[in-house]
């Protein structure tokens, strides 16, 4: 490559790196009174709630620091001791005595809840076995719902064996919706009519039948930013729906979807509907559609006797790992980066710049993907996967440099050394990257939550590392070496000294 061409390409390459560096890492405010803000890609990249940094594109520093929300579900017949005390406050002595006679403090005189006699406990204060069974079933249902949300960090806890405490990390657009609707218990019911009060049941199950004989499954679907709840009816369910909507063309019919006694959504139908699958969108996002579908799906096995739950006592929790974790991760990356560049500059002198440019391009590609791919976010696990991919790139670049060094030592020209060196290591590096990428992408395809995202980052990192080391690195080498008159000195490569015999 000619020197002029090399210089032009090097300038373009450098400008590209500089622009990417600016876009990815620099944030600043501008305009009158610093009214406008330019947010870097790193700032906009979504971050794990455990890390303790503002989450999401619009979150300013200090808006909130990761963390999440918890709430307590109180079953019917269970109230908190605080609520009990509040209730007693406005009563006369006689009313207080009557009220107190209906409740027993649980599990002992220091307990944090009161159980209502005849609902949750017997007259002697022992918990009713029917309540224990119903609570166990409700706990299982709630756990199943939160597990099916597949949100990294979601928790469900049994409190004193009579309450349910749930936690969702601040990584959703609507934690409130999930926490509130997941408290609905009972079976899925669908009614139809012109108004809610006069609506009649869509299905009339015979003895031994349940709603599952009419509704096969409830799933969520997404198309871009819009989410859908998909009801899959059995043939019986389809017949019932067709019959209910047969006159809809003349008089609109509204379908009301309940879980227990709670109305979750309604759908106005203007024409006869005779299909097995019904899609409902409304204003659902993919996330809320998934929440509602999960609720309906678990309600297929619900019963009329399910324990009623009331959500209360919601609190905001700070980030699990502490508030400075992101900063610490950046520092760890900084240490790695400095050590890496020190090695490359010491061993390969100005050839270190080739690796620097390659690595920066790899880094910015990863950052841009982390920002633009919806399910990716910065977490400890994804950071670890990124670091492993970084090591892969560094080792690959070093292997390529060493192969060329060996060829150069034998007396070949630099161009020939690079060509032969790459030829010798190409398939080795190719195999290495393919194996890591295959492992990463396959684990991503099967695993869930944090392991899934980390595996995807590892797979993506391996793919980018392969491209970077086999293509970008070689291109950068050709461009930069073209600007040097002494390629051997540029790369710190030396010829083998052969003594004359």
């Amino acid at each position, binding site marked *: 490559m000619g020197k002029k061409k090399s210089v032009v390409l090097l300038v373009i390459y450098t400008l590209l790196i500089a622009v990417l560096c600016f876009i990815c890492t620099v944030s600043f405010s501008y305009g009158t009174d610093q009214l406008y803000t330019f947010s870097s890609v790193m700032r906009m990249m979504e971050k794990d709630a455990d*890390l303790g940094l503002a989450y999401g594109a619009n979150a300013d520093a200090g808006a909130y620091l990761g963390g999440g*929300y918890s709430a307590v579900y109180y079953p019917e017949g269970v109230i908190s*001791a*605080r609520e009990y005390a509040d209730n007693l406050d406005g009563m006369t002595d006689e009313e207080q005595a009557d009220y107190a006679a209906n409740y027993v403090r649980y599990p002992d005189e*220091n307990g*944090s809840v009161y159980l209502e006699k005849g609902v949750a406990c017997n007259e002697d204060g022992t918990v009713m076995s029917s309540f224990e069974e119903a609570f166990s079933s409700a706990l299982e249902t709630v*756990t199943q719902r939160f*597990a099916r949300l597949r949100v990294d960090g979601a*928790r*469900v*806890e*049994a*409190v*004193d*064996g009579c309450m349910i*405490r749930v936690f969702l990390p601040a990584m959703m*657009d*609507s934690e*409130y*919706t999930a*926490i*509130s609707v997941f408290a609905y218990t009972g079976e899925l019911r669908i009614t139809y009519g012109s108004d809610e009060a006069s609506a009649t049941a869509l299905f009339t199950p015979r003895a031994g039948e349940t709603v599952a004989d009419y509704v096969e499954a409830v799933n969520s679907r997404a198309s871009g930013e819009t989410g859908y709840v998909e009801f899959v009816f059995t043939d019986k369910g389809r017949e019932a729906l067709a019959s209910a909507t047969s006159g809809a063309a003349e008089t609109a019919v509204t379908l009301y979807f309940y879980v227990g006694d709670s109305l979750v959504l309604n759908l106005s139908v203007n024409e006869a509907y005779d299909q097995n699958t019904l899609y409902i969108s409304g204003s659902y996002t993919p996330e*809320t559609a998934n929440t509602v579908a999960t609720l309906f799906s678990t309600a297929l096995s619900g019963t009329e006797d399910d324990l009623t739950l009331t*959500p209360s006592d*919601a*609190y*905001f*929790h700070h980030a*699990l790992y*502490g508030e400075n*974790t992101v900063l*610490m*991760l950046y520092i*760890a990356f900084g*240490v*790695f980066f400095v*050590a890496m560049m020190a090695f490359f500059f010491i061993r390969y002198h100005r050839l270190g710049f080739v690796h620097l440019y390659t690595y920066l391009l790899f880094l910015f590609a990863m950052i841009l993907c982390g920002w633009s791919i919806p399910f990716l976010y910065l977490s*400890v*696990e994804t950071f*670890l996967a990124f*670091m492993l991919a*970084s*090591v892969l790139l*560094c*080792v690959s670049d070093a292997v390529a440099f060493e192969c060329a060094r060996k060829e150069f030592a034998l007396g070949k020209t630099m161009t020939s050394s690079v060509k032969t060196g790459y030829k010798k290591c190409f398939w080795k590096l190719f*195999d290495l990257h*393919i*194996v*890591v990428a295959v*492992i*990463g992408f*396959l*684990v*991503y*395809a*099967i*695993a*869930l*939550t944090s*392991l899934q995202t980390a595996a995807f980052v590892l797979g993506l990192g391996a793919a980018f590392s392969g491209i970077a080391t086999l293509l970008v690195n070689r291109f950068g080498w050709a461009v930069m070496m073209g600007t040097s008159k002494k390629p051997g000195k540029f790369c710190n490569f030396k010829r083998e000294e052969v003594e004359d015999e």
Partner: protein
Amino acid sequence: MSKKRLNLLPVWAAISAVIIIAGIVLMALLGFNEALDRPESKTFDVYYNVVVDLSEDRKSELATYCEDAFADAGISFTDKQTLEGQTDPVSTGQGSFSSTGNDFLLRYTFSADVSDESLAAAKAAVEASIAGNEGFALPAETYVSFDTISLQPMNEAMWRGAVAVAVAAVVALIYIAIRFGMGCALTGLVACVNDAFLTLSVFAIARIPVYAFAPMLYAAIAAAVSAVYWLIRCMKLRDDAKDPTAGVLSADEAVANACAATDKLVWLAAGILLAVVAVCAACTAMTGATFIFAGALIAVAAGLYSSMLLAPALHVKVKAHFDRMKKKNARYEGKKKSAKADAEA
């Protein structure tokens, strides 16, 4: 050393077997030590409301009362949090919570073995301290309680993670089988499975505290790292096999040569990986993230063990077997060819 380790397959296999069997038994009986996720715990809550103008001094006094009471009761907490009350989930139709600005909860977490009597004594002491302080104008605006908490397991992520690691290892090794031969793939598969189980076993036996999601992450790292280390050996074995003189070498000589030539690179790669993970663990030492990085060190080290000891020793046997099969096939093919030639003549 290089040759000696190749002849000690029973020793390496026994070491792995003992650790893995003990680990599997412990995993089945006790599971992992998921103490970081607090599967069983007790919480001591002090609710307070700032509508009655509870100043910052009063808030810190509350914390002091609690901590003094715990000290007097002879108990110590593992975590302390100040939680901010949110609008009641049934009161609005919005998608996200918003702060009430008034309600706070000072929550101390204790291990499950702290007795209820000690917590009751602490509760009584805190209530007495609050009642005795005129600064708390309305005692009703503070409320002290304690609860026993039991985390519900969500096992789907765990078993899906295990299936994912197994499938990924098998598919990656099918690729190795295509590129480097069935012998290399078999040894690699054993190494990957060994390293994944060895990592999990070390966590189970040593009762190292982990987050519930972490074991499968470590198993995946161990499998990936193990595959990479073994790939380095495979590349050298293939290069050596291209040498015309390779045919005269026995399996143990061929493997010993490949190991001697690649040991440095494997050590280097492992050293870099260990150093990078150790730097991450050190930099995050003041945060909860350090446990994740520290655990990853074990996964990387487990891969090094099998790459250095178990896999080469095993591959001597595997390669010898495949070489014998190859020779047998070659003889059979030769006989067939000569018989065919005789028949044609």
